[in-house]
């Protein structure tokens, strides 16, 4: 056992490897260790001594060895108990404790060489937490794992889907935000493309973008389907809805709705459209236009399948409270069947707030008595001042209230106050600018990266120009090209030749 341990501890973490060890050398050390661990006799040999080895390995330094030993241990217990989730891997068991410790401390550089094993362990932890009905146990661990492997979380993997699903099941919505709020715009890179032959990335090297090592061959993700992507966005939108972040929820839903289709739309897209209508009412108080990139025939399909939702939106926009209640009551079974009852009930509660906000379009100021009269259907008149004050306090309404002097008269509501909230408007614009700025940076970096990969970068063009000048110069002084190949130097096409 001591001999195995010596071999398993021979590879230090990249950060602790002796100064000057080249990527090539470290890469070959890792590959040697993996070959050793994958020898046919090793799984049973290591599995038998797993407890001793795990107790003597440091997960942050000997991550690769630790992962293989842990996986061999789990496999051996699974085989002996004929159970995929034996007690040892369930929360509280020895393997569970070790798996959690490992996932909290692993070295991300070493893990670039063991994507599949790493993913299997993450999936197992999630299944074990679900098996004891405590999905929250896996949520924080998996979130940290994703951000450790891919700090910018740019590449979409099957682990992302696992995370958002667990967050929904455990009702721990806030934990999903550090991942959900990032701009994910890549799938694991498909290897074997012609342009990649010139750019072979060594996993242990420093990479600007995680798509250099999160590739299909490394198997950090199981095979992704069209459905996985839509599910991630739909679940993401549901998390934003739970946190009442309506604009982000609407953005996720619009991406699902606008997914490319050939003939027909999928059920998940229709589900997204239904939620999108309700979220639009909750976020804006009206039905916002559908994203422009949705094909008109797709929009028509959506509209034909979501008639009750359209009726609710119509009544809401008309400001017809009774009509709204009637439409909602008629289609009770629809909301239940679609699991949208919660959103629909929120639409009813949000109605008075938007009615008060709408007053600002017609009036500059009015007494509280008048305001009560105009929203009388949906709000008891005794509570109107309290309601309006809370609406202003929660930044939903831009207005101020004035009590009358000496209790003579009614409280005044002065709408579209504007000046007072200029600062908050500026702050809002600032936030939007910063968010767009971040998106621009991500976009610009990606374009640059693609240019480099495709040899379209400025550096490459400058190199070509220099080469061209050198060729021209060599041609003029009569050297550099063998006889009969002089025309090869004349590669600069004269596009004006027909005018000479």
């Amino acid at each position, binding site marked *: 056992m001591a001999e195995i341990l010596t071999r398993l501890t021979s590879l230090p973490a990249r950060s602790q490897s002796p100064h000057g060890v080249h990527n090539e050398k470290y890469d070959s050390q890792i590959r040697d260790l993996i070959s050793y661990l994958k020898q046919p006799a090793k799984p049973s040999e290591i599995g038998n001594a797993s407890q001793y080895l795990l107790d003597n390995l440091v997960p942050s330094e000997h991550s690769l060895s630790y992962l293989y030993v842990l996986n061999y241990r789990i496999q051996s217990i699974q085989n002996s108990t004929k159970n995929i989730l034996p007690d040892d891997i369930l*929360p*509280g068991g020895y393997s569970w*404790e070790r798996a*959690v410790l490992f996932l909290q401390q692993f070295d991300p550089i070493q893990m670039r060489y063991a994507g599949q094993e790493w993913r299997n362990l993450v999936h197992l932890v999630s299944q074990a937490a679900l098996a004891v009905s*405590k999905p*929250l*146990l896996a949520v*924080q661990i998996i979130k940290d794992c994703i951000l450790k492997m891919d700090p910018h979380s740019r590449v979409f993997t099957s682990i992302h889907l696992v995370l958002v699903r667990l967050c929904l099941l*455990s*009702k*721990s*919505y*806030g934990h999903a935000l550090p991942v959900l709020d990032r701009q994910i715009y890549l799938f694991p890179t498909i290897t074997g493309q012609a342009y990649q032959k010139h750019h072979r990335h060594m996993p242990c090297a420093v990479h600007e973008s995680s798509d250099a090592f999160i590739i299909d061959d490394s198997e950090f993700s199981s095979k992704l389907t069209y459905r996985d992507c839509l599910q991630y966005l739909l679940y993401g939108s549901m998390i934003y809805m*739970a*946190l*009442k972040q309506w604009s982000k929820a609407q953005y996720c839903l619009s991406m699902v709705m606008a997914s490319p289709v050939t003939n027909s739309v999928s059920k998940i897209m229709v589900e997204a459209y239904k939620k999108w209508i309700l979220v639009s009412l909750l976020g804006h108080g009206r039905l916002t236009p559908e994203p422009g990139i949705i094909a008109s025939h797709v929009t028509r399909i959506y509209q034909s399948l979501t008639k009750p939702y359209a009726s609710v939106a119509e009544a809401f926009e008309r400001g017809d409270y009774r009509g709204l209640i009637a439409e909602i009551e008629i289609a009770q079974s629809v909301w239940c069947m679609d699991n949208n009852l919660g959103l629909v009930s929120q639409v009813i509660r949000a109605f008075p707030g938007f009615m008060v906000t709408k007053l600002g379009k017609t009036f500059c100021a009015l007494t509280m008595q008048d305001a009560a009269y105009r929203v009388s259907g949906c709000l008891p008149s005794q509570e109107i001042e309290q309601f309006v*004050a*809370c609406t*202003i*306090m*929660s930044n939903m309404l831009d207005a*101020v*209230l*004035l*009590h009358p*002097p*000496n*209790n003579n008269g009614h409280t005044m509501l*002065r709408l579209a106050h504007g000046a*007072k909230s200029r*600062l*908050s408007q*500026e*702050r809002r614009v*600032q936030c939007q*600018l*910063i968010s*767009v*700025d971040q998106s*621009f*940076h991500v976009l*610009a970096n990606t374009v640059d990266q693609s240019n480099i990969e495709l040899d379209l970068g400025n550096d490459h063009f400058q190199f070509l120009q220099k080469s061209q000048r050198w060729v021209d110069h060599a041609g003029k002084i009569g050297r550099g090209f063998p006889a009969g190949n002089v025309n090869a130097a004349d590669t600069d096409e004269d596009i004006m030749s027909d005018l000479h």
Partner: protein
Amino acid sequence: MNQTSLSLEQISTALTEAAKPSDLYDTLAKYESPALFLSTASDKESEVLSVFYSTFFFSHLLTDQIYEARAMTQRMPQDLAQKDPSLQNCLTLLRAVWQQNHEQIYRILRDLPWPDPLQSVVKSYDTYFQEKTLKEVSRAYEAIKPAAAAGYMGLDQTAAEKGDPAVLQRFTACGWTWDEQAGLLYPKLMEEASQQDDAKLYHDVSQILAMLGKGGSR
């Protein structure tokens, strides 16, 4: 930290060592997994769970995470939530905060019995909520009756209506103006813009414009 252990001492240390509410929230968020290993069948563990979830609930309120606080109340052991007085108080408080019922909030914080380990965090939230409400009222009202203002701030409304100087002084100390003839308080807008914010805004916007300019000239 052991993944399966949580004690009253740990919660107490988190409370005393947290420099700001977000620190308290971050620490307690890490304790939620160990809390899942405790059983409500044991009296001792039930006590730890009660103090943990109550403190965690207040840490949500202190960081203005009302929706997350609601989700947390759905995550805590429901059998304990139904019988534990502290957690019952938390649920009543959540309802009042959700409905923005100011008078009810102060009543719950001040009149309901809270166990000793929670006294400090309850007091912190009372102070925090008063300060937050003062800012919100100053934004919502241009002129307000003292009794109404006192209601929002959890002060004695009857005394405020009679023009009690002690109550009025609480508002005038914050820059509000008292007009005795009209019987009204004129709030001072408390949303101040620091120069640092402006400088940051200017810097951020300049960077964005510079980047756009660079992109456009390509």
